[in-house]
């Protein structure tokens, strides 16, 4: 059974204080690791998909990396508007499309 564990559960940063969120996964064949941002009461907003170990992707202050066992979401010089819950999800190699297994998320708060 696919499993995704995110840490920490909650993270509080000062504006400009860089940090990383962790996503550890167990899946017998990965067909994509996904990062989403979710604001309260809203649907998840797509950020990145990573497909193979060593792959990296960047978007503004966010950078996602992937190894064979975990993924990191690095946040550089965060701003208050980066406050949200960040969700990690995996897609098993024998599935396709939008069937994903999610972690519980990391709630990020960035104080001004």
């Amino acid at each position, binding site marked *: 059974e696919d499993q*995704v564990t995110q840490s920490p559960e909650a993270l509080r940063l000062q504006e400009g204080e860089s940090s990383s969120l962790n996503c550890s996964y167990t899946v017998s064949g990965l*067909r*994509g690791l*996904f990062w*989403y941002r979710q604001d309260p*009461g*809203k*649907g*998840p*907003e*797509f950020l990145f*998909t990573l*497909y193979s170990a060593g792959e990296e992707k960047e978007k503004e202050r966010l950078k996602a990396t992937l190894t064979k066992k975990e993924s990191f979401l690095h946040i550089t010089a965060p701003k208050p508007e980066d406050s949200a819950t960040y*969700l990690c*999800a995996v*897609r098993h190699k024998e*599935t*396709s*499309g*939008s*069937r*994903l*297994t*999610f*972690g*519980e*998320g990391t709630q990020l708060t960035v104080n001004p």
Partner: protein
Amino acid sequence: DAGVTQSPTHLIKTRGQQVTLRCSPISGHKSVSWYQQVLGQGPQFIFQYYEKEERGRGNFPDRFSARQFPNYSSELNVNALLLGDSALYLCASSLFGQGNTEAFFGQGTRLTVV
């Protein structure tokens, strides 16, 4: 371009009632999945549909059912509602059968069972 659209946005139902939630995928996407997200937790997979056929089912009771229409829109039905069914219900759409494809979510339907 329109993203994934869900309706209604909010819904209040009484225990024992039935509810139908609706989802329209991104144009060109033929796969739709449904998720339940309880407050403070990650989304849990309920169903996946492709070309009007069920392609996967999560660990949910038979009170939950879904279908997909020829235009690839989808409905999620929940019968005999329980208080524990209160959650944000999310719909995701994507391409299907192609290895590297993203999955995009709608804004969700907030269901409250009283």
